């Protein structure tokens, strides 16, 4: 968590607003309908629209990589250190690989790490944060202790150690390492929101009417934090994309994979700026930035989805 931008505390939705009771509510339409409505609302938000378009392009490129890439991303058959030309649109690496094809295949790793690590981290954060926030006393103390511990252990060194300790270094290692080191911030934010919500009338009344813990937490509190959870996910996904790039850039990832991070790593190793292949540095960084940007922009729309006040006036 430490090597990335500080995670912005996501929106605090006002609980008094007539918020749709989330997907678990009894009078809700089917999940598909909900998703459709969610997407429509997202699409109606200008920023989220840009984000969705970028994200969709990334996903398409990742899926269609074998069709789109003009060459194999690993074949070392070209003349090394070529500047962009008709055959190699982004030039070639010092090992004679085609940078453009690497960029296309690289989308797969960045997306995979971002989404999977983001999801795992969010799952952990929500579970721990909600329970801690709703159950003051010993459970909260223990969970807060674990959260605080995870927060104070410096993230990047922890990643170093884990990356070195796990002998088989693959993309999945990075996913685990990133997820393991980036759940705590989300958990803390969710916990403080949950503890505030706990004292609100609608939760208190649910408690008094004798509903069970699980039900109160997941029916009454969680739906009020949809944007917080989604925010946590997109923040963690952004963090994961950045962390993957950083680990790879430092050579602590798996140099065998083709990702935007490893392109930057080899660009640094072969000093692409010095040999004039600035695209080898510029393109992967910009691609990482655009992917992170799309996550954030979609996040704007998610906020608006659950919090009508953030909706743009059309």
């Amino acid at each position, binding site marked *: *968590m*430490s*090597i*990335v*931008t*500080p*995670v*912005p*505390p996501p*929106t*605090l939705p*006002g609980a008094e*607003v007539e918020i749709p009771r989330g997907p678990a509510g009894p009078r809700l339409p089917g999940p598909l309908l909900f998703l459709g409505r969610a997407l429509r609302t997202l699409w109606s938000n*200008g*920023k989220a629209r840009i984000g969705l378009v970028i994200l969709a392009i990334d996903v398409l490129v990742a899926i269609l990589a074998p069709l789109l890439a003009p060459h194999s991303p690993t074949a070392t058959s070209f003349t090394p250190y070529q500047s962009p030309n008709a055959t190699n649109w982004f030039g070639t690496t010092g090992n004679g690989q085609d940078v453009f094809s690497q960029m296309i295949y690289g989308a797969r790793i960045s997306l995979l790490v971002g989404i999977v690590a983001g999801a795992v981290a969010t799952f952990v954060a929500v579970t721990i944060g909600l329970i801690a926030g709703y159950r003051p006393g010993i459970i909260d*103390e223990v969970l807060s*202790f674990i959260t*605080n*511990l995870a*927060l*104070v*252990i*410096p*993230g*990047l*060194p*922890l990643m*170093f*150690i884990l990356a*070195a*300790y796990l*002998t088989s270094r693959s993309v999945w290692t990075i996913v685990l390492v990133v997820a393991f080191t980036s759940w705590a*911030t989300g958990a803390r*934010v969710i916990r*403080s929101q949950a*503890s*505030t919500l706990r*004292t609100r009338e609608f939760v208190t009344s649910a408690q008094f009417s004798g509903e069970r813990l699980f039900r109160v937490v997941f029916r009454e509190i969680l739906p009020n934090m949809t944007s917080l959870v989604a925010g946590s996910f997109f923040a963690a996904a*952004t963090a994961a994309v950045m962390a993957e790039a*950083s680990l790879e*850039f*430092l050579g602590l990832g798996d140099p065998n994979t083709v990702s935007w991070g490893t392109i*930057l790593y080899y660009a*640094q190793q072969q000093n692409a*700026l010095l040999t004039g292949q*600035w695209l080898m*540095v510029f393109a992967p*960084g910009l691609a*990482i*930035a655009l*992917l*992170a*940007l799309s996550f*954030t*922009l979609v996040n*704007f729309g998610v*906020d608006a989805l659950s*919090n009508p006040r*953030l909706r743009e*006036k059309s």
Partner: protein
Amino acid sequence: MRYVGRKAALFVITLWGAITLNFLLPRLMPGSPVDAALGKLASSGVVITNAQRQAVEIQLGVPHGSLVSQYGQYLNSIVHLNFGSSYSFPSETVAQTIGKAAPWTLALIGVTTIVAFIIGTLLGVYAGWRRGKTADTTVTLGATFFAAFPPFWLGLLLLFVFAFKYSVFPIKGGYSPGATPGLSPSFLADAVYHSIIPAVTLAVTTLSGWVFGMRNNMINTLGEDYVTFAEANGLRTRTVALLYAARNALLPNVTAFGLSLGAVVGGSVLVEGVFSYPGLGNLLYIAVSNHDFPLMQALFLVITVSMLVAIFIVDLIYVRLDPRVRQA
């Protein structure tokens, strides 16, 4: 007061947990410090011999004895703030090594973070207040775009363009070669000159977190009943925005600020690496890659304690700002 007391107890327990984890983690790493030290020789083209291995083992004085007795020694040395000397810098104490590096990190990243926080929060208040207007869109989109840049990448590009291509700024370091650190005006000017691109890199990439965190909080708070009530009572909107809404919207941002300030040291690794800045981040990278237990542990301790203190303070401020948590 009971709340504060419990937080203090928690602070101490967390400190112990962190100290113990700090002890265990480096020892879980495969490969000994001797192997790592030999690696430095090998990477400079020296063929390693058994004689060299023995000499290095003696030089490092690699710890023997059981984990339990090592743990005892470790706790003892922490109590006495005596970390011995590191493997990487055998001729000085760990405290000296860290003492030389700490001011650079604190100055560079501490200051940029504070500046980014202040500017970012103010921009966020403004954007939230002008929600939906062009000013809002410009501020948020711009900040979001810059936030998405990997800091090391932006650093690389700035370094290449401004330090190499056009030689406007120095390529590396915190001050000119040959200069002796001190507080003379010429040295300080030199240091400031060396810190400009690293500082810009960090500020640009961290600004946005504060901007849109604050903006969204503002928008929410502006919709709360008491703000509407204040507006209805005829208070000027600017007053409402700044005094009522901003104060409450600041709450979650304070949490994030404390955490981020504590993460300063950890976060400095990559940026300091790119600019070869003489701070703790660089030091940490060296310690970890050399399996330098004493240095690593001491650095971990510094980071851990600073983060714990930051969180503790944030907890206290939080109580002051939001009385609701006090009832817990």
